[in-house]
Structure formats: structure tokens, C-alpha cells
């Protein structure tokens, strides 16, 4: 049995597999498949300062080897999360990451303050949600604004701070550097690539929001490339995600530079995927006489 534990920004995870924000709710439903302690951690559904109802349906469409979604940050608000979900989550013996999104920098700071008072393990700054008009991605696409918001939230945040990056940018490495300079303890990446699908009979976009975020296996090569570029540009750890489907993908993402991983879209076809991936990684490490999964991170040998 290889050592699967990893550490990100001082927080220990039993294994590198974290449920991706927005695909796993607050854990209760998937907790009816397997004990959540099988996961290294859970990144909770993105929360906002006040309750949000999200976008009208349809919120999802299928694409080749991927999906588009535009949930639009439906959530009960940070207070309800702290009161009703966090206590239960903290009993599940897994790392709990709160994913926060806001309309304004003040929103983010207020949430960081509130969450710093709780026993949530980490805070993930979602400045990359493409599916809401304001509230996220407008902060995530320029170095200045990423540096700025990270710095301000950092000042209100007494938890390890993860900044989650959007792939819809020209130069992801500089964005990551801006987050690092702003005080991020870790980077998580990638959020979804903006995409669109149109019903050719009705000529209507299938997603009611017109565009949605592309995730799933289709984006995996883009995610690996970006994780590699960012790992060459920053020295804080990276939580890699975007289309991880098999244990081979997980190993590849770590070799590209990730310290831990988030698993999202594949849950929808196989709810057990993160558990199977953890087993697959363990087998791979054993077969290759690698003692600890941490030995994979960033070991790509570029040409």
C-alpha cells in the first residue's frame, strides 16, 4: 500500500482526490454511495453571500466527451451553508473546502471573514465562474484584478486560500503569478471553458444561459497544458482538474505538476470514479515501487 496522502498549503489530505466544486453539492447525496472519508476532500458547491436561485433550465447539455453547464451558482447563501451543511460535512472525516463567489470584492471579503470563523479547512476563491453575469469571472481574466482581489480577500481570510483560475485567458501563467503575488496559498485549475450548443431545429441555444462551461474529458489536454505552464511559473501547489476520468489521467495530471486533484464531470457517469481513481493510483504506485504519490508531482520530462 503506497502512501497516498498529500499536503496542500499545510492541510493534509488522505489522498489527492477531491470532489470538484459544483458537481458534488455539499456531499450528502454522494455520501449515500460511499463514506466521504474515501475522498481526500470535498470542494463544496460555490456559495455566495446571499441565497441565489441560479439560472433557469436547461442548465446542461452534452457535447463530444464533455458537457456544458450553466447552473449559475444556485446556493442557499453562506450563512445557511455554515449553519446547516458545514457541521455535517465536518463529521465526514475529509477535508472541507468552501468555494466562494461574489458580485463584488466586498462580497468575497465578507464571506472570507465569516468562513474564517468556522472550522472549514480551506477557502477556494472562485473567480472563474463563466455562468453568471457578474460574480466571478470578471475578476479572473486579468492579472491586475486577480492580484487585487486575492490581496484583499487574503487580508480577510484566516484559512488557507486557494485561487481557482479560469482557462478562458490568453496567458494563464501570468494570472497564476498574480494570484501567488496576491497571497494565494494554492492554485486550483481549471474551471470550465466557455462553450455553446445550439438546437438546429429550434435555432435556440440548448443552455438557457446561451453559453455554458465545458468540462469533462474533452478539456483534459487543455487542463494538463495549463497545469504544466502554471507549475513552471509559480511555487505554490496546484490542485489540478478538468476532465480527469481515469486513474491514468490522474497520474498524468500530477506528473504535469498537480499536488492534488479535483474530480467533477466523470461523477455523472460513474459516481464511484474518485474512489476507483484512488485505487488505480495506489496500484500504479505499487507496481512501479513508488512509495508516495507526492513523488509524481511535476516530474514531467519535457523535450
Amino acid at each position, binding site marked *: 500500500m503506497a502512501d497516498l496522502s498529500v499536503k496542500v498549503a499545510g492541510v493534509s489530505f488522505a489522498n489527492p482526490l477531491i470532489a470538484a466544486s*459544483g458537481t458534488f453539492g455539499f456531499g450528502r*447525496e*454522494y455520501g*449515500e454511495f460511499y463514506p466521504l472519508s474515501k475522498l481526500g476532500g470535498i470542494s463544496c458547491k460555490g456559495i455566495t453571500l446571499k441565497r441565489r436561485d*441560479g439560472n433557469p*433550465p436547461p442548465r446542461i447539455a452534452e457535447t463530444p466527451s464533455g*458537457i456544458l453547464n450553466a447552473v449559475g451558482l444556485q446556493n442557499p447563501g453562506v450563512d445557511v451553508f455554515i449553519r446547516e451543511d458545514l457541521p455535517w460535512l465536518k463529521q465526514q472525516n475529509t477535508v472541507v473546502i468552501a468555494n466562494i463567489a461574489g458580485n463584488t470584492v466586498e462580497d468575497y471579503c465578507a464571506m472570507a471573514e465569516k468562513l474564517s470563523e468556522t472550522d472549514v479547512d480551506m477557502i477556494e476563491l472562485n473567480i472563474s465562474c463563466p455562468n453568471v453575469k457578474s460574480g466571478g469571472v470578471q475578476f479572473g481574466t486579468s492579472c491586475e484584478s486577480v492580484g487585487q482581489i486575492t490581496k484583499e480577500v487574503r487580508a480577510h481570510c484566516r484559512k488557507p486560500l486557494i485561487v481557482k483560475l479560469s482557462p478562458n485567458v490568453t496567458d494563464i501563467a501570468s494570472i497564476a503569478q498574480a494570484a501567488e503575488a496576491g497571497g494565494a496559498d494554492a492554485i486550483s485549475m481549471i474551471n470550465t471553458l466557455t462553450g455553446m450548443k445550439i438546437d438546429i431545429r429550434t435555432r435556440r441555444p440548448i443552455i438557457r444561459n446561451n453559453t455554458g462551461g465545458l468540462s469533462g474529458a474533452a478539456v483534459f489536454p487543455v487542463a494538463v497544458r495549463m497545469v504544466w505552464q502554471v507549475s513552471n511559473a509559480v511555487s505554490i501547489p496546484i490542485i489540478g482538474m478538468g476532465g480527469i476520468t481515469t486513474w491514468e489521467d490522474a497520474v498524468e495530471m500530477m506528473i504535469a505538476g498537480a499536488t492534488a486533484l479535483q474530480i467533477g*464531470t466523470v461523477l455523472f*457517469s*460513474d459516481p464511484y470514479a474518485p474512489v476507483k481513481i484512488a485505487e488505480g493510483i495506489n496500484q500504479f504506485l505499487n507496481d512501479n515501487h513508488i512509495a508516495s504519490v507526492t513523488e509524481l508531482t511535476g516530474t514531467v520530462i519535457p523535450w
Partner: protein
Amino acid sequence: MKYDIRQLRLLSNEAIAKGIYDMRLAYGENEIPVQCGQFAHVYVPGKSLRRPISVCDARDGVLRLVYQVKGEGTKIMSQMKQGEQVDVLVPLGNGFCVDKEKKYALIGGGIGVPPMLYTAAQCKEPLAITGFRSRELVILQEDFAQAGAEAVLVTDDGSAGKKGFVTDVLRERIAEVDEVCACGPTSMLEAVARVCAEFGKPCQISLEERMACGIGACLVCAVKVRKNGEEIMQHVCKNGPVFNAEEVVFHG
């Protein structure tokens, strides 16, 4: 653990009407713990999302899914062969609440008819009113009769059964029934709900929405409902697919 994935052996998968297939899966145990109106989330090899299909029947250890080929996913389903293992997540959602003491009208429209069959099997002598566009799409009529229902068939064009809509028949017969359950296109459900409201009969309706997780985690299958005067978002997969018609905000 409430949920599990099951690999069920395909017993048969035959066309029973134009583009409509009847898939029968061996459940393993004789008593399948499925409530009428619940659904199965079917894995389709090569697809990113499962396909939600209502349970059409679940007696004698056979899980029956009746589905129409719409796009690629259901097309692949229709090509699955006897003996294959089909990966299903079942049962999901909340089905129809039926009470053996009451008299039900069960309304099905088109490919919304299948779940009404297992519902009929749970009721005492229900009135099953099923409507189809035309003759070549008619399904399950003998099954309803065998399940002890009075089966009334209507078609839009009169090519089989009576010409007209399910609501025409419902209106004529609603005095006889205590409660109504319905599944079908949204426009039909709205019309059924209106008739029920008019006559003061409780009405349960089964809704459809595009899904991902199927269990309430991803929040994609939203539907707006009115609870205690407030409009809130619920989810077809977890809170439904069956909702109290009075609470649903159509065109929400």
C-alpha cells in the same frame, strides 16, 4: 448507503411501436424496491451523461424501461443486445404517492405513458387515460388492462381509440375519481392540472428536465415550485420527478 449502481442483465429490448423500445432487465431479486413514478439513470457507453428513464414496470424481478429513440443516447440503448450488462442507477427520485383506498385517474401522454403502467399496478381499478399522436405510437394498452385498469385510449388524429385529448376524457370522468396522476408533455400536464384545479381534485405530475447526477448534487435539473407562498428552486431528480401540480410554477 441509499444508492448503488447495478449491472443488470438485459433480457430483451424490442421495438413495440414506431421508434419505441421495451427494455427488460433482470433485477436479481424478485421484489424490486421501486416506487411507481421513480426513474432509472441508465449509463450509455461513450456518453458523458446517463439517460433518465422512468420505471415502466418492476414486477416479478424484471425492471422494464420503455423509451423512445430521440437522440444518440437512446439510439445506442436501442442497439443493446440480450445478455449484455446494463449499468443503471435505480431507483431514483420520488414517485407517485398512491393509496389503495382511493380511485385514481392515471393520465399518460405519449412517451409519458410508461410510468403510469407500474402506477396502475399499485392502484385499485384505476382509470388509465392514455393519449398518443396517432395509431403507430400507441403502446401498453393490453398491459394496462392486465394490470386491472380501465384503459381509455385517445389519439390526436383519431387513428386509434377516440379522437381527442386526454383532458377531454378526464373532464367527462373526473367526477368518478378521488385523485389524478399524470405524466407527459408539459403542455398536457398543465392542461391536466387546470382541469384538476377546476374540479378540486388533487393532482400529481411527473416532470422532465435535463439531468447530470440524477441524485440532487449538481443542481442542473431545476424546477421552480411555490412553497408557503415563496418561489424556490427544487430539482426534478431529487424532489421529483413527481410534484404536486399546485406547487409547480410552469414557465418558471
